[in-house]
């Protein structure tokens, strides 16, 4: 009986919940306060935006919306570690990544407002759009990574998946592809404790979710997903490795979904309040602000200014969203194919004719 392979999963945290540097080493970013401040601002912006989006939904001005409350560090950490030419494959709530990458808040609102134009966003044009069928984005990221590898481009892909989604076969197949083709990519498992009403422990009895990467022999680690420094640093390290031809990494970022799953969900049906209350003590914004303040890099005044700025920008975004031009009915035909097939042209004409009717059957 010989041991033919050994593995372990490490947990990485640089910033404690109370904002102190902990651990064996200090990551570069920890001393780059300007950078941290700008990321902090994006984290706060994301949160202010998020609250606004929820209230828009509550007042009937937005469709179902998936909140990112509590995920700000992992999202902004990912976004800030990536380069523009890299490709991001989101699921549906990683606004923090996207804001860093240039997607506009008004575009996010358009999307959740039931308008495809939101996905034709101002972020990198090569980035993937929001992806509702869980885990399918991971294989897209693998395909994009293979494209880069074949073309010998120094680009990487980053895809995310939830704790729930980490059970789905195509996520696991994507890990396997990354292993088989040695792809330049990083998988981030955003473990926020819940997949709608199903808690993490019901997804698997494995000690960690990171270990799913071991299936393919990929380096697999856990990070504190509420620790901006840890997320940023570890993703960046993994991206450097990937860009360097050393293959993919799986990173489980442990965070917590502080809100409902989406605005269509009511977490009080299945989740104890105490758990949420407790989780708030570990949330990501508090600690990074504390770290900045402890290092005399942030003041109450700056905080107030920031809050004003966020409120203003979010208001602007809402205005932009609300003043979007009317979607013509023809839009549902015009992007089906590069060229409109004959039978569809007929249907398009019919749909358009209904628009002209005074009694508008399509409108109702």
């Amino acid at each position, binding site marked *: 009986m010989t041991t033919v392979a050994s593995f372990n999963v490490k947990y990485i945290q640089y910033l404690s919940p109370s904002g102190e540097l902990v651990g064996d080493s200090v990551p570069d970013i920890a001393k780059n306060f300007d950078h941290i401040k700008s990321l902090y601002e994006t984290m706060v912006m994301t949160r202010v935006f998020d609250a606004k989006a929820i209230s828009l939904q509550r007042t009937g001005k937005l*469709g*179902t919306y998936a909140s990112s409350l509590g995920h700000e560090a992992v999202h902004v950490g990912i976004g800030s570690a990536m380069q523009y030419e890299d490709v991001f494959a989101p699921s*549906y709530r990683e606004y923090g990544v996207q804001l860093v990458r240039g997607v506009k808040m008004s575009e996010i609102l358009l*999307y*959740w*407002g*039931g*308008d*495809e134009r939101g996905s034709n966003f101002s972020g990198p044009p090569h980035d993937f759009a*929001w992806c*509702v*069928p*869980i885990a399918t984005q991971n294989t897209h990221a693998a395909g994009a990574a293979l494209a880069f590898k074949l073309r010998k481009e120094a680009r990487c892909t980053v895809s995310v998946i*939830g704790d*729930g*989604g980490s*059970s*789905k*076969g*195509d996520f696991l197949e994507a890990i396997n592809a990354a292993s088989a083709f040695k792809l330049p990519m990083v998988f981030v498992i955003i473990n926020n404790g819940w*997949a*709608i*009403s*199903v808690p993490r422990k*019901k*997804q*698997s009895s494995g000690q960690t979710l990171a270990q799913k990467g071991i299936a393919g022999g990929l380096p697999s680690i856990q990070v504190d997903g509420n620790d901006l420094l840890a997320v940023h640093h570890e993703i960046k390290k993994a991206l450097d490795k990937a860009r360097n031809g050393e293959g993919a990494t799986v990173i489980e970022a442990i965070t917590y979904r502080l809100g409902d799953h989406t605005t*269509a*969900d009511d977490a009080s*049906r*299945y989740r104890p309040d105490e758990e949420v209350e407790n989780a708030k003590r570990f949330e990501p914004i508090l600690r990074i602000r504390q770290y900045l303040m402890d290092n005399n890099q942030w003041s109450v005044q700056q905080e107030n200014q920031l809050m004003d700025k966020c409120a203003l920008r979010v208001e602007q975004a809402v205005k932009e969203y609300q003043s979007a031009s009317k*979607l013509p*009915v023809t*839009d*549902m*035909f015009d992007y*089906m194919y590069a060229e409109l097939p004959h*039978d*569809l042209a007929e*249907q*398009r004409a019919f*749909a358009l004719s*209904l628009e002209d*009717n005074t*009694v*508008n*059957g*399509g*409108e*109702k």
Partner: protein
Amino acid sequence: MSNITMVEAVSLALSHELENDKDVVVLGEDVGINGGVFRATSGLAQKFGENRVIDTPLAEAMIAGMTVGMATQGLKPVAEAQFLGFIFPMFEQIVCHAARMRNRTRGRLTCPLVIRAPFGGGIHAPEHHSESIESMFAHTPGLRVVIPSSPTRAYGLLLAAIRDPDPVLFLEPKRIYRLNKEEVIDDGEELPLDMCFELREGNDITLVTWGSMVKETLEAADQLATQGISAEVIDVATVSPLDMDTILESVKKTGRCVIIQEAVQHCSVGSEIAAGLADKGLYSLIAPVKRVSGYDVIMPLFKLEKKYMPSVERILMAVNKIMEVS
């Protein structure tokens, strides 16, 4: 005996069978303590326990495959696909195994399972939550595809589906989940899985539909009545196997037919019904068979979804067009 909505009728049927048949097991994502994202399994986990109403990991291929495995070993699993748009990872299991197990093993192993899925548009849901792809399954021999359109029919058809010794895909039009209430008696009486329901008698035209479009079709029939046109309305309900005879019988009487469905038109259940008429009903037809369907496009996000879906207006247009013919 109480007035309940269609989604409550689904719960009621599930509860009835969980109570009466110890082999029935409900499983899926969020079907447990949360009671399903539409509350179709509400209260069941609390009532029957975690061994009868099972929250699964998020993995549809696994849910379907385990459902097949359980069914072959004597259970009667009722699995939920959270939305029909997420059923694709289940395809391989449904088409290659559930539908084939009896035939493959000459009856040695069978698959008395149900897969339930809410479907259809009109509730401002996100992408992939609103499609109607019943025809993909209807094209699969060995599978029953059942679509209720009222609380009473949901209750009776779901009971029948669970008790049926073969696999049944049970598609629940979620736009009408809470449309209206009906008195549903929890008497365990099932409805047949091989018959259309005639919802309204008429002589001038036959309107054939199913699922959520029953609503618009009945409304159209009401309006036609005020024009002096008497429309027969048929709720297909079991789109596979299909009771074509009832439809043919009706068209024999009326000579005209409009088929109304939410799904895209190309290669759909509506196509099959029209094809059946073009063959066995040709000599009854006074006028072309019209289909009022979703356009052959991707179900748009919700800003345009209403314009995608067949409306009363569009039904009336189609009817009036062929009523002109004589």
